[in-house]
């Protein structure tokens, strides 16, 4: 029987690394192992230091180990090709093209990626090859939950659809009836504790604990069990001679106690290493530390390496020009993988701007958002003023809640127009499809982004891959509307209005005088590469990076021990790489002894980064990085 292992947790906690460590260990033990990533911003190739791509690829140097990155675009194309084959054969070219355009909508992408994912839960019968272990390096928490929730929702959608109108947003029932068996099988495998195992990787931090608890309870609702925790990034004894790391180790020990108390699952720990984890040999070393409890000292990066010259920091005026409004309202997008500090970067920037007197709205559509945690002030689904900080408002766009509101609005409108109750029932079924959430959340973002009262809108976006899809939606939708013109002969004015609305949003996102895209990362290989790929992909829709932010930077004056020196040396190398890859202002956020929380801390940190509005410098408890 094939064993399935899922790795979950907030992005940037070492999920991929732990998944790869397990995969290499199983393969070395002689088990036939396959590691699959469903993360749209996958980094398997970086960790294994070889090309992988959208097909099962043998890993060089590890017999028995295979890997695959599910490419959402390619999965979509494969899905479309399969559905289109009979149509291409029989219909005129113009119609084939229109149907293809239609199938390129946002719903299809979500369906296709998931469809491919479930294929792997059915592998033995698929290609005749047998794997002893299949490891899924899943997407970050919020997205993972949605991905894993889909089978339940879909089985429901399909059942309802066959009783009702015979259609769902996913596609007509006939087309997905075959898939139903597959999705049910996927869910039954995930629910079977003897076949499936869920690892949650987390750092010993407050937000990570809360998020892990929430993620596990979501899965428990789906009758999934067999959870285990890997607590990663624990500062080793040799690291604690340094004051900053010693303070962080103390913070960690409190959180470790909290984890023991609050999360009653099997737990394993993994230490923070002096250098990053990359390559097969390194993964084997990590395996020795993790599985065998060996004390292995990884080579120090500092020794014998030339110091990388640190380029002069960008001028504060240049940085401010990217965040302050310039005649128009400015919309700031903070993009980057979950866990890199996007929320902190958004909050620091929003608080600083509010303190400069700009009416600022801070919002997120990330299902795993924690604006309220960082601001230390409640943030709900309605725009609310942040107590203690004039000019600052915040709102958390919960996709589920947005979908409910959207549904209610559409149904009320239909009732008002005197639609039959039976027709309204059909509409309700349609609206229960998973795509409604995505659509409703975006619809709400546009609502806020086009309100005139804000001078600055700060958007703490969802993790990279998800963000891209979300941001590409307006383009997709205006294409959908072009296609939809055929559906109704009355020139639909509502569609024209909508198209104009999306057009304005696209224009705003592409105009550097109105919008700034800030890519947040920490100075390590994987996050940089992910941010760079995301930026490249955004360029294809005409959106360019305006600035980059490096988080968790160890202040230069802090490097008193070999452990910290080694980590600082690694960071310097990567700070140089960030400058090389992103020819835009680079802002550095220092690594702090504690988590960033509360207005006071955000204010001080903001002044360290963006300067003080009035005087040139002020005493700060944060070491300046420049």
């Amino acid at each position, binding site marked *: 029987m094939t064993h399935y292992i899922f790795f979950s947790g907030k992005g940037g906690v070492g999920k991929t690394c732990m998944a790869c460590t397990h995969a290499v260990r199983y393969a070395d033990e002689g088990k036939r192992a396959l590691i699959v990533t469903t993360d749209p911003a996958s980094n398997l190739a970086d960790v294994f230091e070889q090309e992988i791509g959208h097909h099962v690829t043998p890993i060089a140097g590890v017999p028995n180990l295979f890997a695959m990155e599910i490419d959402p675009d390619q999965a979509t194309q494969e899905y479309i090709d399969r559905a289109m084959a009979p149509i291409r054969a029989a219909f*005129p070219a113009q119609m084939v093209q229109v149907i293809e355009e239609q199938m390129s909508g946002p719903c299809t992408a979500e369906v296709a990626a998931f469809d491919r994912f479930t294929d792997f839960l059915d592998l033995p019968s698929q290609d005749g090859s047998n794997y002893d272990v299949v490891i899924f390096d899943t997407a970050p928490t919020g997205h993972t939950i949605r991905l894993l929730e889909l089978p339940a929702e879909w089985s429901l959608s399909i059942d309802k659809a066959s009783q009702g109108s015979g259609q769902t947003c996913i596609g007509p029932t006939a087309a997905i009836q075959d898939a139903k068996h597959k999705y049910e099988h996927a869910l039954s495998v995930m629910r079977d504790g003897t076949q499936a195992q869920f690892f949650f990787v987390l750092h010993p931090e407050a937000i990570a604990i809360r998020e892990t608890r929430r993620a596990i309870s979501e899965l428990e609702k789906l009758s999934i069990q067999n959870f285990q925790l890997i607590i990663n990034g624990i500062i080793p004894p040799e690291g604690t001679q340094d004051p900053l790391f010693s303070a962080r180790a103390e913070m960690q020990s409190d959180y470790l106690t909290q984890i023991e108390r609050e999360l009653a699952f099997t737990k394993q720990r993994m230490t923070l290493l002096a250098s990053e984890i990359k390559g097969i040999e390194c993964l084997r070393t990590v395996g020795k530390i993790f599985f065998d409890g060996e004390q292995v000292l990884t080579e120090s990066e500092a020794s014998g390496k030339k110091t990388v010259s640190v380029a002069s920091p960008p001028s504060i005026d240049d940085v401010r020009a990217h965040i302050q409004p310039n005649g128009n309202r400015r919309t700031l997008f903070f993009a980057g993988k979950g866990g890199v500090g996007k929320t902190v970067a958004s909050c620091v920037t929003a608080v600083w701007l509010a303190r400069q007197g700009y009416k600022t709205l801070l919002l997120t559509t990330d299902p795993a958002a924690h604006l309220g945690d960082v601001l230390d002030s409640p943030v709900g689904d309605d725009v609310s003023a942040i107590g203690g900080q004039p000019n600052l408002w915040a709102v958390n766009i919960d996709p589920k809640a947005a979908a409910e509101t959207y549904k209610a609005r559409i149904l009320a409108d239909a009732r008002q127009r005197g639609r*039959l109750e039976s027709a309204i029932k059909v509409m309700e079924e349609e609206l229960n499809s998973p795509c409604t959430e995505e659509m409703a959340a975006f619809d709400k973002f546009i609502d806020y982004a086009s309100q005139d009262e804000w001078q600055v809108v700060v958007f703490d976006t969802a993790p990279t891959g998800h963000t891209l899809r979300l941001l590409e939606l307006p383009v997709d939708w205006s294409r959908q509307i072009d296609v939809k013109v055929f559906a109704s*002969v009355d020139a639909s004015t509502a569609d024209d209005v909508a198209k104009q609305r999306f057009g304005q949003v696209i224009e705003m996102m592409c105009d550097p005088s109105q919008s700034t895209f800030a890519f947040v990362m920490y100075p390590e290989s994987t996050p940089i590469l992910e941010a760079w790929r995301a930026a490249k992909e955004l360029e294809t829709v005409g959106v360019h990076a305006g600035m980059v932010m490096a988080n968790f930077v160890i202040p230069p004056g802090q490097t008193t021990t070999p452990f910290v020196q080694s980590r600082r040396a690694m960071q310097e190398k990567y700070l140089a790489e960030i400058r090389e890859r992103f020819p835009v202002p680079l802002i550095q956020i220092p690594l702090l002894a504690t988590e960033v929380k509360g207005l006071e801390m955000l204010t001080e940190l903001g002044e360290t980064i963006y300067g003080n509005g009035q005087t040139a410098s002020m005493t700060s408890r944060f070491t300046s990085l420049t």
Partner: protein
Amino acid sequence: MTEPVTLFDVPPAPQKTADVEIFDPPMCCPTGLCGPTLDQTMLDVNEMILSLQTDGLRVERYQINSHPNAFLGNTEVMELVREKEMEALPITVVRGIIVKVGTYPAQDEVRAALNGVSA
């Protein structure tokens, strides 16, 4: 005289064709709710279908990507599709006879066609 030979215990169910068939243009869903805006025309069509169904009539809707065979199985529909391409759709067929091409019919038109044909 020999008795007729019974070939089936139960006679095969008569292949009752639908009273009304609608060959839709390609779209995400029939109520128009999948797109970013509501299409009231699609809602009207949906209500018409429900109303016909309430009267015990059989109504089928086909889309090319889900029911290509329904298109391929109707020679007249395919002729229109090949000739006029997208502009031919939607096509409404009442008891095998094409009654509307290029736009959706009003309920009255369908009812009139049903009465005319069945009379």
